[in-house]
């Protein structure tokens, strides 16, 4: 645990290295961190920011882009920012022409909710744990808000990995000659919440890592996939996936009822 006792040469080198990673050293690390107070002797984490900026601004089409209003803090004003979603990283810029993001929100483990706020079309990105920051964002239209909520709640690496595993299993079953139906029979879904707020969770149960033996390239990888000793594809994983499917079904229903209500009130 990093504590007052860690005055080793390592610590000194750690502090001198950050200058390279931070093109704007005058800001200081403490001011760059949003949310939560760090302990007095806990050094800031290094991050390959130059690579992040490069990833954020690369030519490939992003998963979602658009202007959103971002609340500065609990009692702060909203700032209009240009948001770019790539994978499980939500970058935000001053404007679309900016060459470097103002910041990034790592989305892994977040949940996305509609919220009642002073701004219309508001939603929140929340994280589990004590004293974590909730990001309140507001879109400029109903459609944009729905698009963002959908995109963000499915942005996690964990979610993508689950879908890939599911397809991997389907392929394996097909190649083994088993017959696989197009889907599971839909279960009865619980009704959406009365207060109009529905929760979409991108959070998934921790799954043991299953090896993905797929190799990069246009050809599909050979099957069956090689698995690590710790991995287990069994009823538990299948149940998790069915549960996830149910959550998203719930999401669609909640959204539909929300649209219905908002249309009923001119």
């Amino acid at each position, binding site marked *: *645990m*990093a504590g007052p006792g*860690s005055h080793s040469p*390592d610590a000194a080198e750690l502090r001198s*290295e950050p200058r*390279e990673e931070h093109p704007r050293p005058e800001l200081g690390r403490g001011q*760059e*961190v*949003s*949310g*939560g107070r*760090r302990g007095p002797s806990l050094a800031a*984490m290094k*991050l*390959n920011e*130059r*690579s*992040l*900026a*490069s*990833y954020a601004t690369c030519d490939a*089409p992003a998963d979602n882009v658009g202007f959103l209003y971002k609340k500065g803090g609990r009692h702060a004003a909203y700032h209009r920012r240009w948001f770019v979603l*790539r*994978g*499980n*990283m939500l970058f935000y810029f001053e404007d679309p022409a900016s060459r470097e993001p*103002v*910041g*990034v*929100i*790592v989305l*892994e483990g977040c949940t996305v909710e509609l919220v009642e706020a002073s701004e219309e079309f508001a939603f929140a990105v929340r*994280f589990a*744990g004590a*004293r*974590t*920051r909730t990001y309140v964002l507001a879109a400029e239209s109903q459609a944009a808000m729905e698009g963002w909520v959908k995109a963000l709640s*499915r942005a996690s*690496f*964990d979610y*993508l*990995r689950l*879908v890939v595993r599911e*397809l991997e299993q*389907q*392929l394996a079953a*097909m190649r083994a000659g088993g017959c696989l139906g*197009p889907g599971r029979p839909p279960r009865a879904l619980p009704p959406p919440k009365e207060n109009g707020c529905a929760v979409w969770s991108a959070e998934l149960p*921790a799954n*043991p*890592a299953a090896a*993905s033996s*797929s190799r*990069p*390239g246009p050809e*599909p990888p050979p099957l069956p996939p090689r698995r690590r000793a710790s991995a287990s594809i069994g009823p538990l994983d299948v149940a998790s996936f069915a549960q996830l*499917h149910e959550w*998203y*079904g719930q999401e*669609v229903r909640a959204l539909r009822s929300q649209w219905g209500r908002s249309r009923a009130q001119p």
Partner: protein
Amino acid sequence: MRYNEKELRALSRQPAELAAELGMRGPKKGSVLKRRLVKLVVNFLFYFRTDEAEPIGALLLEHCRVIKEEPSVFSISFIEDPERKYHFECSSEEQCEQWTEALRQASYEFMRKTLISYRNEIQKMTGKDPLEQFGISEEARFQLSSWKV
């Protein structure tokens, strides 16, 4: 660049795909080799001092290149500066193989490509889009047009 450090730290405590004590050398000229606990969680590589619970740093593994430099040494570099390399020394050639393979497949982008190829294959075999059952078949990020070799 601001980032949600708290959440990233929490992520570093999640179960890892792969974790080991390796020798690590930073990209700066004259960097010294140090023992680090290196932990792969989703598309992040966290590194810790061997006796500490909080990570010193993290590398986002998107648009990176993993190269086997020597039988038991690999490096990670990034597209925008391929000569700037983080070196990792393993205890065996086997361990080095294990890490290079895992890291090459660790990115979100790699996972996306895998999904697209599986989808395509299943669609060819069955005539049906397997993503429809998940309600995500229309998402731009899974379209073949976003495929990049």
